[in-house]
């Protein structure tokens, strides 16, 4: 391997430290949560730092969220959630695909749109009345 010839001791050290540090958030954020496989998961939709909707992942639904023309369409299917359509510039939220584990997120930075998956054992399903969101199919 030509690559291994160039690498020095410090390089291996840098790679090791960087990899270990990158898994640190997992340890910090996941240790407090006890995730059991049959627990209900809810998706918390936040737009511009305000919680606008909590969705239960048990029912297959499609929701459309609209803030001043910035649209994100969210699909729930088989206890998974994804952004199916958005009119943002980079489409990164659509590319992030299906999520189904507690702690996972889908972010759309241009619209300040965020989906957080949380443990929904004792959470109340609610919605923000003033925010423009519609159920596309029941």
């Amino acid at each position: 391997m030509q690559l291994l010839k160039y690498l020095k001791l410090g390089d291996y050290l840098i790679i090791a430290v960087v990899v270990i540090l990158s898994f640190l958030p997992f340890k910090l954020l996941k240790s407090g949560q006890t995730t059991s496989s049959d627990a209900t998961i809810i998706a918390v939709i936040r737009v511009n730092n305000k919680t606008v909707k909590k969705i239960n992942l048990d029912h297959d639904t499609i929701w459309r969220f609209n803030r001043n023309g910035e649209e994100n369409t969210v699909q729930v299917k088989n206890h998974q959630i994804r952004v199916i359509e958005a009119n943002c510039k980079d489409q990164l939220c659509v590319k992030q695909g299906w999520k189904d584990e507690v702690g996972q997120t889908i972010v759309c930075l241009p619209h300040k749109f965020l989906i957080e998956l949380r443990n929904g054992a004792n959470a109340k399903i609610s919605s923000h009345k003033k925010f423009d969101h519609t159920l596309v199919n029941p």
Partner: protein
Amino acid sequence: MIRTNKDLERYIFVGILCAQGIILGLIEQSFPPIFAFAPGAKLGFTNVITLLALVILPFKDCILLTFLRLTTTALISGGVSTFIYAATGAFLSLFLMKLALLAYPRLVSLIGVSILGGVSHNFGQLLVASLIAQSKYVMLYLPLLTFSGIVAGILVGFGVKYLLPYTQAITHVQKGLLKNRKGI
């Protein structure tokens, strides 16, 4: 008189590197995304220019170069929010790469330095994203970005390794620059 010529040469060199960085950044934006598994990850061609500048220019010129490049890129292709993301990542990686370069070439090679730069660039951007979204769970995305940062860092490191001998062509400029660097 000679002193002003040296300064002029240095600023022209900063200008050339800055222009190259902007062009590389624009070319990279038009590419299809290479890391399909990690949306948002980039190859980081501009890191080639930053690392090259760190090796051959004094540090204060590197700060000037990065600032100019970020401002111009924001004016051409982005808005204020892209500028904030890019600036946090760029300056974090700039300072960390400078720290790592203190051990170059005895302990680390250019590849290790550029890996550190690429990963810290991604980390800085993710940090701002998680601050703006006000959700610490965004940070769980870090391992994917770290992996793509390491791959990109290896490519960039090799790029700089092959580019560096060609900058020797302007030897008298570089000699002047190195002399200046000792004074700082």
